[in-house]
């Protein structure tokens, strides 16, 4: 568990550094962003591996208990709920689904990253580029939610992670971790 706690901490720190590097003078440093992204990836993999082993243990325990507990909401929703309403000081970090969304891009047609069903009123500052003239530093694929097998989890976000999400500024909450992190590597 220490490994997963350290992995979680490393991921959170890397996220913070990636966000703050957007504000730094001279623009994004590609080398630094790349190293941070790779550290975060490896921390995420280790965190998942650690989580998978605890999942297996937890599900076995649950099966042994009485089946009275109602099934939680389906896997997709908790993450949306969590991102909308932060619960301060909550137990588990949902860094995992955030990274999943970011690092498993969904192949979509065109540049949909600025469209958001959750907050249609908010206009992105970026112009909608035509496909032909699309600058190469914008990611071509949009992040997708990876459906993990297993029991649905109550995934909530720590207030720390929510701070980073809100730091996105013009970025809306739902794909917020997805966009700047992909762009962190690609935007130079």
């Amino acid at each position: 568990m220490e490994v997963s706690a350290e992995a979680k901490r490393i991921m959170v720190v890397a996220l913070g550094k990636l966000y703050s590097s957007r504000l730094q003078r001279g623009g994004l440093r590609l080398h630094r962003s790349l190293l941070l992204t790779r550290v975060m990836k490896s921390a995420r993999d280790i965190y998942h591996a650690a989580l998978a082993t605890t999942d297996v243990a937890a599900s076995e325990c649950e099966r042994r208990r009485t089946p009275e507990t109602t099934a939680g909401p389906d896997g997709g929703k908790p993450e949306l709920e969590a991102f909308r309403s932060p619960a301060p000081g909550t137990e588990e970090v949902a860094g995992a689904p955030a990274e999943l969304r970011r690092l498993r891009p969904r192949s979509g047609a065109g540049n949909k990253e600025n469209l958001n069903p959750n907050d249609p009123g908010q206009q992105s500052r970026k112009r909608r580029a035509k496909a032909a003239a699309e600058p190469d530093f914008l990611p071509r694929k949009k992040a997708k939610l990876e459906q993990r097998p297993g029991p649905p989890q109550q995934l909530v976000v720590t207030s720390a992670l929510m701070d980073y999400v809100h730091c996105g500024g013009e970025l809306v909450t739902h794909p917020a971790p997805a966009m700047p992190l992909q762009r962190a590597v690609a935007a130079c």
Partner: protein
Amino acid sequence: MGEDVESTKINHTFLRDYVTEADVISTVEFNQTGDLLATGDKGGRVVIFQREIEPKWDSEEVGEMGDSGEYNVYSTFQSHEPDFDYLKSLEIEEKINKIRWLPQQNAAHFLLSTNDKTIKLWKVSERDKRPEGYNLKDNEGRLKDVSTITSLQVPVLKHTDLMVEVRPRRVFSNGHTYHVNSISVNSDGETYLSADDLRINMWHLGITDRSFNIVDIKPANMEDLTEVITAAEFHPHHCHLFVYSSSKGTLRLCDMRASALCDQHTKLFEEPEDPGSRSFFSEIISSVSDVKFSHNGRYLLTRDYLTAKVWDLNMDKGPVETYQVHEYLRSKLCSLYENDCIFDKFECVWNSSDSVIMTGAYNSFFRMFDRETGRGVTLEAWRESSKPRAVLRTRRVYTGGKRRRGDVGVDSLDFTKKILHMAWHPSENIIAIAATNNLYIFQDRVRPELQTQ
């Protein structure tokens, strides 16, 4: 009255401790003769020091004639200004990333200086004479009234105070999309390379509107990016060879005769990873921050976060020598990651005979390794103001065992005092060490029998 004295003291302390960001030295470089030393800082300025020819002290005290001169300021100029990329809405820092001198061909000196995007060629020349005695103009250049001229005179050259003029001769711009990290002058004397995170360009010193792209590691899809270029250098003698290092700890030797685009390396230098030492930060600490050819062109010196390595050009399986710079930091990598120190880029240098290598560390310490004995020594870039000619003391970081007086504990190290930039005189044992906003120049004593004085 007492209060006034105290407040003056407080203000003075504050001023002394406060370091302007712009004054932080970001690069140091000797020219080919070692008579000139250039430093660049974060504010975009370049300061050139020149070595005094005559000794300043009585010759009987030291017994040396003319060799150990001091370095004094020769010229200061603003090389780069803050700039703005309007297309990407990005500020371009004026910080000087690298300075490289050109080999001297006439009375003037030339140097290349670069920031993140633009490389400039500067001409440094001296003027100590001016013509005087014109017939139609007076000495200030104003036209004379013709009726006052009664005789003809021949203008003569009169000595004036030495004036050092620095003029920009070429500006090599728009060559790089990413941040320039290295420049290197070719031994052919006509071309030089500039490297950014993903590309290396070759320029002709006389042509500013075009350059050749010789390395391009940008993937078609930026999401597939796995490594970046961290440093590049031309071979000191072979004008067709150059090396570049990557963030994954590899070195690639490229031969420009093989093809126009040197994406396919001629040799790949890589050390197999030790699986036992794998950690979250293995990749960050294996990133090479500097690469230098030896003067004889047979070896390469690289620096990563914890070690300095010497590679033989003829052996690509691994380094021939590995020197631990500050192994005691390996257990502190997590904290160094959090305070950003793990991303620090240290430089490394060879001495003139390639027998000693030197690199920087924290707490104003720097390390020298004797390649013949394999032994390393830790020195501190600090000068006691009361003893201007003191011998450098060797320092030790306490890592266990018997603690000696003067040892510094790992937790007492000051990580804000980092020695990132340094240079070694091309032929003598004179080193220039940049410690934040201070430049230290240390000289080896020529006569060992005088060390007791």
